[in-house]
Every structure is written in structure tokens, then in C-alpha cells.
């Protein structure tokens, strides 16, 4: 069995930044990242590590190239998220859930020892089912009685609203019309294509031509890497059929155009997968376009496929965020007192998003080539909004000596989640890097991380999707430390 990690990052829509992930089973990957993945690295040593890895094995080469370029991949996700109306809409919906849900949740938490989760699922159960679950849970709790759990009409209404909002999020994330048998083509495939094309450029810049071949071959041939390769493979075939070399700038332009739909005007036709399906059909018929003015290319695709212009989508998105800000500023006093801190945190988040979006939109609209040409983008990294960065250690955290932890802290790294283990070791679950990755500082990292914790808690209590989220482990632990056991409804 090979012993490498297959995924090194994850875009987490709860965090306005980037998240690199390391598995507890592979502590050496974190050490490797520290040597070759961060901005403090020595380029010559990184290049040499790549040469040595190529000689060792395809798996080792993939690990080194991935770890060395993971930040570029994740930062591209971050920029796509803050630039696209799609990403912004998802973020606003999450904040709406927090705003509604916490008004019901916070009064419920005081003095309780148990709470069923997710709450909307509990609300949907009939009395007989609730009694059956309470009996089963009492068994799990060693015979301890599970307290009755009743809600006022207002609390129930607020929790119902979270259910509706999650359903809207699901509509954004999952398109049932692009599923056929066991094959499912979804918006995240376009996100991955955008980040993958950018990362390939970075692999080339950092490790050279041979590395690009090894990296793309590994991704294209590994069954578990399909999310990263599906769109790339389809685009690659377009150029192959036309008998010309794949053009990364035009391929990346396809991914970017698909992510920049106008949901206000075009409705669900703005879904990235629908835009891709239509554009792909056009490009198959006419062949991939030659490299040219990217703005013109966007305008041509928009007109041919009868969509709203990208410029309008960006403008409308900005107006939607501003409306949310206005609502909170005008109504802050109407929320219960216990919500005051959360309302101001939400206002900070919306204003940060609006600032980052305005900056990225200005840059993008003035020079779209600078965003879609992977070389230009990677070279001008510093011009785009910088991303707060965290590292998450999944699968039980990473065990490090206290001395190493102190050394990390001296570098400015903040241990966000961790606990002492024995006398001289610490289990670390999440760390925050001392400075944002990339250029223009518009988002405060600690506030972003604080908000991410709140949104994780919001998901834990209200989301009926993706209940196997590993971030929930930390919520469960912190609730237990506060004397509250969350009881998961499994059906």
C-alpha cells in the first residue's frame, strides 16, 4: 500500500480564506508543507525536492507537487468564491441561517444537558417517534434521562426558516438535472477545474515541465481524483479533437465564465453546470476558439447563449450584498440583546465580502485576461485580495511535542484548536497562519476564523445535509465540555 495523502486542501465556504488539510495518519505531510509549501520556502530546495520525488515514485512525486502548490489551488478557490455571484450568494445564505437560527438556538442552550440535532429534523418528527428516540438515547446515555424538548411557535418558525434556506443552498450546490445514472456533474466540478488549471501552471513554474506531466497524469488516471479532472478532461478533448494543443487560458476562461452567471436575471439557467453544458455544446460544434481578447470572448458566449452579461451579474451581486448590509444596519436594534455580538460579526463579514468582491471585480473587469491566464494570474498574485489561511488536521488531530508547539507559536502561528496530551505533548486540530496568503489585505484572519466557528456550529445544529462533517467533532467536544451532549438523529 502506498502511504500518501490524496487531498491536501478543501475550500470551506464557512471560512473567508483558505484551508489546507493534513491527515493525522501522515504527520510527515505537514513537515513537508512547512518545508516546501509556504511563502518562506527556498525555491532551489523546492525544485530539488521535486527532482528527487520524480526519481522515487509517481505517488511521492504527486505528493511533493501537490503540497508545493496546494496554496495556489486553494487561493484560486478563494478568489473564485469572492468574485463570483454564485459564491457570494452561498455565503449570504449561510449568514441568513446563522441570523435566524441563533435567535432560536441560544435561549435553548442554557441549563440543558442534552439536545437533539439537527433541530429541523427533530421538529419534523411526530410525538411517537420523538418518544422512541428519547428512549433509545437514554440507553446510550447509560440510563440518564433525556430531557423533553419543546419549542415555542416563534422558535419553531425560525428553525423552519433555516430548513428552507438550507434547501436553497442545496439547490445551488446540487443540480439534479445534470445527473445521469451513477454519473453526476455538479457545480463543484467547475470550481475544481478553475483551481486545477491554475495549479498546473504553478507546478510548471515551481517544478518544471516534467513535473507537469507527472502531476496531470496522476490526476487524470486516479479514480478518486475525478472531481478535479472531469471538466479538465472534457476541455482537453475539445482541443484534441480539433488537432491543436490545449490552451490553458481559454480553458480557464470557460471555467470562469461558467462561474459568473447572473442568478437574479437568468434564474437556475445561471447554474455553472447549465452554462457549461450549453457552452460546451457550442464549442463542440464550432471548435475551441483561438486565444484572443477575453472580454470579447465572454461577450460572444453571453450573446450566443442569450445570457445576462458578466458585468451585470457582478453589479447585481454587489447590490444584493449591500441590501443585506443595509438591512442589518437599519434593524440591528430589533434583534434580541443576546444577538448583538452576532449581528455585528455578520456585518463585519458582509462588509469584508463586499470590499473583497469590489476589489476583485474591479481588477477582473479591467483585465479579465489577468484572471483567466494562469501564468498572468500566478505572476500577479499580489494584486488580488489576500486570503486568511488555516491548516486543519483531520482524523483525530496531529500529536506534536510541546517544544514544537512553542516553536510554531514563536513563528506567529496560532493554535486555534488543540489540547494537552500527557505531560509534554499537544494534540493540534487547527492552526491559523500568522499572515494572509497573497496580496491586498482586506479580511481580518481572526474574525474570519471566529465566524467560521459560528457557521460550523450553525451547520451542526440546523443542517440536515452532510452530517458526517469532521468539523462537527470539535463542536461536539466543546459542547460536552460545557456539559451538553448533542444527540444525532440518524434517520
Amino acid at each position, binding site marked *: 500500500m502506498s502511504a500518501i495523502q490524496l487531498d491536501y486542501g478543501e475550500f470551506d465556504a464557512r471560512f473567508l480564506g483558505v484551508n489546507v488539510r493534513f491527515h493525522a495518519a501522515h504527520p510527515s505531510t505537514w513537515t513537508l508543507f512547512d518545508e516546501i509549501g509556504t511563502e518562506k520556502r527556498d525555491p532551489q530546495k523546492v525544485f530539488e525536492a521535486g527532482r528527487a520525488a520524480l526519481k522515487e515514485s509517481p505517488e511521492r512525486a504527486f505528493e511533493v507537487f501537490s503540497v508545493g502548490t496546494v496554496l495556489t489551488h486553494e487561493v484560486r478557490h478563494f478568489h473564485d468564491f469572492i468574485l463570483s455571484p454564485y459564491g457570494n450568494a452561498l455565503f449570504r445564505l449561510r449568514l441568513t441561517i446563522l441570523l435566524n437560527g441563533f435567535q432560536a438556538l441560544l435561549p435553548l442552550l442554557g441549563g440543558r444537558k442534552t439536545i437533539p440535532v439537527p433541530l429541523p429534523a427533530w421538529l419534523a418528527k411526530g410525538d411517537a417517534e420523538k418518544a422512541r428516540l428519547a428512549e433509545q438515547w437514554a440507553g446510550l446515555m447509560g440510563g440518564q434521562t433525556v430531557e423533553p424538548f419543546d419549542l415555542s411557535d416563534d422558535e419553531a418558525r425560525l428553525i423552519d426558516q433555516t430548513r428552507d434556506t438550507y434547501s436553497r443552498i442545496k439547490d445551488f450546490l446540487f443540480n439534479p438535472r445534470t445527473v445521469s445514472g451513477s454519473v453526476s456533474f455538479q457545480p463543484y466540478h467547475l470550481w475544481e477545474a478553475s483551481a486545477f488549471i491554475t495549479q498546473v501552471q504553478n507546478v510548471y513554474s515551481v517544478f518544471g515541465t516534467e513535473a507537469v506531466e507527472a502531476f496531470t497524469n496522476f490526476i487524470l488516471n486516479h479514480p*478518486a481524483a475525478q472531481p478535479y479532472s472531469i471538466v479538465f478532461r472534457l476541455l482537453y478533448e475539445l482541443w484534441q479533437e480539433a488537432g491543436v494543443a490545449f490552451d490553458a487560458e481559454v480553458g480557464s476562461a470557460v471555467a470562469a465564465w461558467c462561474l459568473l452567471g447572473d442568478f437574479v436575471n437568468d434564474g437556475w439557467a445561471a447554474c455553472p453546470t447549465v452554462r457549461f453544458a450549453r457552452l460546451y455544446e457550442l464549442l463542440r460544434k464550432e471548435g475551441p476558439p483561438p486565444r484572443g481578447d477575453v472580454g470579447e470572448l465572454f461577450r460572444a458566449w453571453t450573446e450566443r447563449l442569450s445570457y445576462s452579461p458578466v458585468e451585470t451579474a457582478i453589479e447585481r451581486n454587489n447590490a444584493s450584498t449591500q441590501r443585506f448590509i443595509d438591512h442589518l444596519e437599519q434593524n440591528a436594534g430589533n434583534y434580541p440583546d443576546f444577538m448583538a455580538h452576532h449581528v455585528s460579526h455578520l456585518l463585519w463579514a458582509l462588509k469584508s465580502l463586499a470590499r473583497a468582491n469590489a476589489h476583485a471585480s474591479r481588477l477582473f473587469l479591467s483585465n479579465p485576461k489577468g484572471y483567466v491566464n494562469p501564468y498572468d494570474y500566478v505572476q500577479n498574485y499580489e494584486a488580488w485580495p489576500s486570503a486568511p489561511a488555516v491548516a486543519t488536521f483531520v482524523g483525530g488531530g496531529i500529536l506534536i511535542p510541546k517544544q514544537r508547539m512553542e516553536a510554531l507559536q514563536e513563528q506567529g502561528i496560532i493554535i486555534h484548536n488543540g489540547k494537552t496530551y500527557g505531560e509534554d505533548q499537544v494534540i493540534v486540530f487547527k492552526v491559523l497562519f500568522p499572515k494572509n496568503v497573497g496580496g491586498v489585505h482586506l479580511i481580518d484572519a481572526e474574525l474570519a476564523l471566529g465566524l467560521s466557528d459560528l457557521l460550523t456550529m450553525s451547520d451542526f445544529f440546523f443542517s440536515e445535509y452532510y452530517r458526517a462533517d469532521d468539523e462537527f467533532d470539535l463542536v461536539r467536544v466543546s459542547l460536552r465540555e460545557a456539559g451538553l451532549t448533542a444527540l444525532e438523529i440518524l434517520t
Partner: protein
Amino acid sequence: MQLHDQIQVKIIGSPEVVEEIRSDWAARPDQAQVVSSGPERDINSYRYGLTEIATIVGIIEGVAALGELGKKLYDYLKGGGDDARTIIVQTPLGRWEFVARDDLTEAEVQEILRKLAGVTP
């Protein structure tokens, strides 16, 4: 040791392992009952490196049946020579992501399952 009669368990994994567990439970109705099973379309499934996943929810009767499940999970993780093999187990008290590359012993798998089931020494 404290033990309760019924433990509700949800398992998320490849269609093959879920089907194996379903057949196993169906053959031993005194030890486990299938509540539901089928394909899972969770959009986040790709995070586990699974291209197609399924889930099964069942009620396990007692610690012996829990031990049987632990053995089955261990055998699955060890078989096939694929270090990316992943199974997620959820109970009302928590979840655990078992990955073959973590190279857990059978005793470790059993210990994690017992913790998830609230079985305390």
C-alpha cells in the same frame, strides 16, 4: 461495563461494503435490523475519495453484534490493498472516519466503535 440494548448506527461507504453489511444484518435479524439503505448523493462525498457511495442505517442489538460489525469493518479496511478505502460510522453520539491508510488494528477499530456507541468501561 454498562450496556444498553439498542444502538442506532449509520454507515457511509462504497456500495459494495454497504451491501455486504446489509446482507450480513439481514441474515442475523436477532442481532441487527436494517432501518434503511440505498445510494447516497451527498455532494461532499468526493471529499472521502469515493466516487460512488451508499449508506445504511440499522439498529444493533448489544455488544456482541457491535463486535461483529467492528470485525467486518476491519476486514474491509484491510482487504483489497487500497489505502484510500474509507468508511464513516455515525451514531447518535458522534462519527468516525475509518481510512485504510490509518492502519488501525482490529482492537483499535473495536475501541472506537464502543466509544461511539456509548459503551463505557
